[in-house]
């Protein structure tokens, strides 16, 4: 039974570091049109001081040796965007390696099947209790893989029952407009057709906030979000 005890600043730092290390997301596959705007935003993570649970079993299982999987925050437009479909690329993978999920956050279009290959030399048990997609892949060893089809949009939190510090999120989207929030809290979604949108900014621990945003025909709509 592992339990990681982190101080609030430490957690924030960890998240930022993780976000900084994350691979930049590919530009949205949107057919260029005459006039496209963009969304420039900034996410301020409230230094929440969550209640601490007394560590009644210090050092048990060497919990401190494992770093809880950090998941970068993601900003995305809610709902379908006319004329813009999320690219159905190669079959995406959420692999388990070094007792962590790779990548920490996976953004996929609705209807995508995702492979969950086990690359570690021991069992993993991947499951999700998220309403968007509840699944339990059971235990399987190295080299095996399971596939889940995500047929509803939304955020699916993925855990491994065996290794509690392992976590990841699958963001099932209906449009290609999304961006990871950088370590400095900044995010930028380019090539958005002008119009009114609903922008969701989601963080693994803090949930998501949806704001209305109007993207101009040219230039950038600026958004500041607090979570």
């Amino acid at each position: 039974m592992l339990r990681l005890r982190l101080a609030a600043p430490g957690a924030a730092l960890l998240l930022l570091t993780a976000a900084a290390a994350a691979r930049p997301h590919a530009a949205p596959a949107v057919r260029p049109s005459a006039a496209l705007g963009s969304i420039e935003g900034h996410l301020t993570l409230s230094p929440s001081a969550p209640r601490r649970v007394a560590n009644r079993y210090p050092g048990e299982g060497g919990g401190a040796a494992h770093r809880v999987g950090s998941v970068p925050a993601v900003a995305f437009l809610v709902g379908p965007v006319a004329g813009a479909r999320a690219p159905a690329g190669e079959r995406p993978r959420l692999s388990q390696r070094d007792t962590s999920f790779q990548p920490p956050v996976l953004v996929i279009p609705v209807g995508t099947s995702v492979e969950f290959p086990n690359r570690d030399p021991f069992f993993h048990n991947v499951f999700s209790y998220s309403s968007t997609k509840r699944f339990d892949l059971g235990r399987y060893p190295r080299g095996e893989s399971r596939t889940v089809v995500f047929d509803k949009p939304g955020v699916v939190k993925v855990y491994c029952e065996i290794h509690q510090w392992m976590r990841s999120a699958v963001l099932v989207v209906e449009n290609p407009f999304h961006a990871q929030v950088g370590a400095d809290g900044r995010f930028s979604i380019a090539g958005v057709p002008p119009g009114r949108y609903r922008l969701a900014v989601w963080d693994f621990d803090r949930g998501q906030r949806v704001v209305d945003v109007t993207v101009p025909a040219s230039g950038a709509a600026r958004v500041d979000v607090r979570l």
Partner: protein
Amino acid sequence: MTRFPSGLDRIRHSFAAKLLLALAGTVGLLLLVTVATIRVQTHRQVAVALRRSLQQSRRVFAQQERDVREGLASDVNRWVQSNRIYAALDDALMNGSVDTLVLATDYEITLALRPPALTLHAYTDASGNPVGSALGPRILPRPDAGVPAPLVRWLLASDTGTATFGYHLVEHRLFAVYTTLVANPFGTVLGTMTLGTAVTDSMAREAGQAIGAEVCFVADGGCVAATSAARKGLDSAMVAMAGVRQARRVDWRGRRFLLRADRVSAGAGMRDVWRVVAFPLDGVLGPFESIQRAALLAGLGALGLAVILAIVLSRGFARPVRALVAATERVAAGDYEVRVEAASRDELGTLAGAFNEMTEGLMLKERYRGVLDKVVSRDIADELLKGEILLGGETRRVSTLFADIRGFTAMTEGMEPQRVIALLNEFMERASDAVEAEGGVVDKFVGDELMAVFGAPMSRGSDADRAVRAALGIRRAMEAVNRDRRARGEPPMGVGIGINCGDAVAGNMGSPGRLNYTVLGESVNIASRLCDQAGPGQILVVEPFLAQLETAVDAEPLGPRSFKGISAPLQVYTIRSLRETPAVDDRAETVSAPGGADGSASSSPNPSPSAGATVAGAVLAAVLALGGAVPAHAQNLPTFEELGIGWTSPDGSLQVTPSGRIEVEGFVPGDQYRGLIDATDAFANLRASLFVDVFAGQRVFGSVELRADRGEAPADRPLRGRIEQAYLRVTPLPSANLSIQAGKFVSPFGGWPQRHASPAQEAFIRPPLPYDYRTVVSTTAITAGPAGFQTWKNRPEIFRHLGAPPVWAAPYQVGAMLTGGWKALSARAAVMNSAPSSEPGEWNSIGAGEHGPSYVAHAEVKVIPELRLGVSYDRGSYLQDQTTLNPLPPGEGVDHYKQVLWGFEGTFARGPVEARGELLLDTWDVPNLADYPRDVSFYLESKVKLTAGLFAAARYSGIRFDKVDNGAGGRERWDYPVDRLQLAAGYRLGRTTELRAEYMLNSTDAPPAGSDDLFAVRWSWSF
């Protein structure tokens, strides 16, 4: 006279009441003390038992609660640390649906083998807002239904997030709940989770079985979980216990319970849950109640016995008293022939004897008096009998009356002498009656003349008037006589009377050998002269006499006449009649005088109960009071063993163990104690015994007892030391239960001697009759023959000391004994130097002497563990070497005469009750008797342990004697039957000390009479 019966009733009632009070009071007091002691002990024991039960139940419940809590904690902690629960709670918080959460937890519940329907789980967010509640898979309609809000509040408020435990009611069902935080591994608290398990009947049953009680959990005014009995109706009483701090007793279906409520959860906002336990009392109270019942029954039986005894004794007392009273009445009525039968030889018998002597004396006196009355007047006889008449004389004022028959000589001439005497007697009788009717004294008869005196030897007042009335009475009487005579054709008798009054000398005159009371003087002479001059029917007096009269008379003067010795002539009158009749009849006084005896009967001394009984009662009460008052630990004197006194050889093969016992006894014997105590006054006895036991290896054992006391038959004599026992026992094969013993030890005959020294086995101070009563068979005195032998039972008490008991208490004789045992059977055979009846002086000789040894055998079988039966036999010479009184028949030695004893014994012991009985058949071969005098003696006893240390015992023993030839052609019992009742009570003051008291009552017709009871107390200390 009619007051005698009421006087008797008063005596009887008073005596019966006192006797009843003494007997019933003693027994009643004992009963009261016993029952009270048992009650107190019962309460104490019940309180202790219940306190233990309560403590035990609290332990059991605490353990049960701990088990429940730890089970819940173990599960819920595992679950909340699993990311499934927090993932599910996270989702519920994000999406507002608890379906997944409930599903996930229910899955865990199933895995943990918890019954889903009895498992509560509920959730809140990190602020304590309820998220959802479910029983297993079933989501409760209200999300907060399963949330123990106070527990959640405390949990969230606490810094450490320590989980909390409590009780929570959901849908009228009580749940033990455990609430803890749900956090993700990165430390974020998502909310709380509560896991609860229902408190079920089976849990109540489990606890109930562990503590042996009925259990009910009460919440919200109802029974939420209970044992089956509690469910069946006891629950209403148990529910009512909620909030009650005191224990309560209830009866339910004929069973008794003690209810006790404990609050199992408390705190602000938490529901009060009460655990009510019903301890069954029957099991705890039962044994005490049966003891109490037994004691009460035994006590009431004893009380009834005491009442019956009192009635019987008082009746036995009243019957002779009634006979005496009846006899007294007859004596009062003048029947001096009456005799009272002296049935018994006690005080009443003595009284009857005294009464008989008295009536005999009275009869004799009456006979003398009768003679006296015939020769002298009754008054004079009275005076004479009183011895108050002096030989000399005294001058008294007396009235003298002379009466004689006119012409007696002429009338009787030629008459037959018998007829003359008859004539004279007729006159004298009538005249005497008339005189005595007036209180006069007929002084003498001289020929046909009667002389009567009024005023001597004592005056009754109005003596002159009496004399006149007497004279008139004589005249009347004679008139009646003459009427008859005339009717028969006989000539009438004419009586002349003279009366005079004056000073005269009165007294006994004559020689000391023959006295004659009479009066002499001038006035007497005048009366005599007047009589001489009186014609038939005339009553002559002189003038001065008339002046003496208080009553007016009709008198006719006859003119002056001269009298010899009187210078002047005196006027003579003849009295015709009295003018008026005297109003006062003084005779009433004389009649009522004997009535004074009435008072003496009612004031007869009330027999007081014997002093011994009174002292016994007082000391018994004191002993009981002391026994109750002295705490046990105060009496725990150390023993030699505890003090480390003793010696063991270095290799352990030789061991010397000393021990001792000190007994202080007090005896209050009655006037005539017949047991082996030589005293009739109260005395104390100190008995100090020192035992030295030597163990040499496994095979050899030796024991010596040195004793100092006031004799084997204790009495008021100096302390004497002696070797009570000294013997060596060899057990050749320790495994074979076979041993040989030689030396001085207690005879193996009978049951009582074997245990008399063990305070644990013997409840009394004095032995039963077979071991404590001297018959008239002597070990030294030789009877001449049957006739002489029959008188021995009635000889003075001092001779009974020559008699031998069937068994002389516990005879410590010199001898050798073989003992063996096999399974439930044990047997002993011994040769002792003398018979069991032999005197202590005989016990110590090494050889048997001329009289020869005594052979003893004893066998005992343990029928069941509670019951032992035994039989013993003894045959041996009982005469001592030196005999007295009469020679032995020629050619016979003392060894020829044997005593043969058979003994049968039984012991039953179960629980606090022990009962024993013994029957001894004793046959003597007595020199010069063709018959073999036999006696049968027995006892029955019972001992009850009332409470720890306290016991009471009763023993009845008796001895009966056979009929033998009485030398006069008949057969007669050779000694009087004796019965003995012993009541004893004892209290163990500590481990080593004990106090006991005994009251003994013996009953027999054997002389001499005297109260034969004994009160004894004993304090003993074994060390």
